[in-house]
């Protein structure tokens, strides 16, 4: 048993993280992906209340030539945020099949690297 503190169950959703192929961008108003060569891709219907968002919106709005190499890379990352009742693994193949996607994976399962949480809490007098 390795020391970790997971987030409370059911509180947070777990998205599908993906990276756009170079030259592609997402039009949030229209809900479609656009390539630099004029191609369009409308993702198929996903569960109700699913959102497709840039991981770092401030970079997504920035001109590419004003960004550092690391920021240019970071600019291409997106998330499919599913409702909490849906598992990202169930939609991974779908997202990977999109023509605009270079790579996709379920978001990491994050926890706190805390160990040996005190055995005896004496916070009640």
């Amino acid at each position, binding site marked *: 048993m*390795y*020391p*970790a*503190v997971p*987030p*409370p169950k059911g*509180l*947070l*959703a*777990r*998205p599908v*993280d993906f*990276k756009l192929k170079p030259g592609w961008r997402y039009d949030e108003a229209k809900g479609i992906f656009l390539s630099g060569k004029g191609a369009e891709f409308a993702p198929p219907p996903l569960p109700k209340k699913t*959102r497709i*968002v840039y*991981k*770092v*919106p*401030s*970079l997504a709005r920035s001109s590419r030539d004003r960004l*550092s190499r*690391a*920021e240019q*890379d*970071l600019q291409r*990352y997106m*998330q499919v*945020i599913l409702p*909490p009742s849906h598992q990202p693994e169930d939609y991974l193949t779908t997202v990977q099949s999109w023509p605009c996607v270079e790579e996709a994976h379920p*978001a*990491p*399962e*994050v*926890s*706190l*690297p*805390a*160990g*040996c*949480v*005190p*055995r*005896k*809490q*004496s*916070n*009640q*007098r």
Partner: protein
Amino acid sequence: MARKKMSRSGPKLSKQGFTIEHFETPGIPDYVVAELRYESPVAYTTSRFVAPSAGASQAGRLNDVLAKFDVASMRSQYGFKGAAVRSRLSLAAALPAQPSAKILDAKGAGAEFRQSGFVQIVPKRAEDCRKLVAALSKEKSVWKAYVAPRPVPAGLSGNAAGTRLFEPAQGYLYSPPVGIGAADVWSLAGAKGKGVTICDIEGAWNTKHEDLPAGISLIGGTMIPDIGWRNHGTAVLGEMVSVPNSKGCVGISHAAKAVVHSAVINGVFNLAQALTNAAAQLNAGDVILIELQATGPNNKYVAMQFWPDIFSAIVAATAKGITVVQAAGNGDENFDLPIFNNTGLQKDSGAIVVGAGIPPSNFFDFDGGGGFGAAYQNIGVPRSRIWFSNYGKIVNVQGWGFHVTTLAYGDLQGDPSENKWYTARFSGTSSASPIVTGAAACIQGRSKAKNGAPLSPAKVRKILMDTGTPQVPGPGVPLTQRIGPLPNLAKAMTLV
């Protein structure tokens, strides 16, 4: 005499911060103790003084005093029965005035004789005690009379309103090789982290804790409403910026400013955005701490820079001059395995990656005494890798990964309010990383004060690695399982 249940009112504080409970014992009456002179041939019954003819006048005068008060009872203070009390008469009659101890011994007037002269007199009205004492004190046959004291429990009840000072338990502040020598450099201008902002990225904090500075702000993301996460964030902040005063802990870089950013954005973890947002609000010389881990391809916890978007976000932040410190994670994972080839675990993001080392002791709960539960456990050789710490070439330095004294949790000091909780057992790469973050803030604060500008993140990392107290091997944890040295701030400051 019937004893009623004790009651007590609210606590008061001593100057030292201990709680003093005020006990009341309403069922136990006040009473007077009168000590008869050794040479007074007077005895007593349960209602009056008695004496043979030689002491009759003395007994009579004492009974005259008693007659002025409403006396509830009278007895030997030592519980002697009537015969034992009366036996003092003949010996007392044979003694000279104010006999010395030598004479008493010679006459065979031992402890029982001496104790037999103590009379307990209980007036019906407590307010009569002082008057009775005054009257008895005037009598020739009484050596001394006094109102009996009302004892209260001698124990200190502890912790509630008055927090103790836990700095002696913060061994990580101590001089190397035990700690990082933070206290050794605080006298240097800027070396408490002045002018540096630290941003802790995780999920929740109790910024109202009594030992944290005011004004720690959430600069982005959403708090996780969970006590476990809140304790964790509070403990992390405590290691770095606890307020130096007469209570609680002292932060390694307590002159630094702290802010916090939750990694939860849009209802999901998005560390890449949290890092980017935080970096946008910080300046060169500031420090970001990543207090998270996640499950890697071997189903073990790994450092967050394994994921390429997070790796890029760290690279971007360090390129702005912001030092990023990252917990290596608690997966007992070897980052140098082939499965991690071409991943962030085998590339330099610019971050300082921190492993968990074994401390020599936590300088506090050696024996489990004091109500702190089990004793400090010897889990291996000091400064060797703790069994759960991740390791590999990218792990740069280590911090104490076991039984760190800081804020929150409540195992060291509990209270109805979590604002007064303290722990002696914060552990993991979680406890190790703030130690290194605090050290980085001290270095940057010193550089700003001395050189007028901060160092580059790469320089800060190099100084910490080059000057630290080396990692040592232990049983089953050879040096090839690299977690790097423990920072040594005194040496580090010579290179700033």
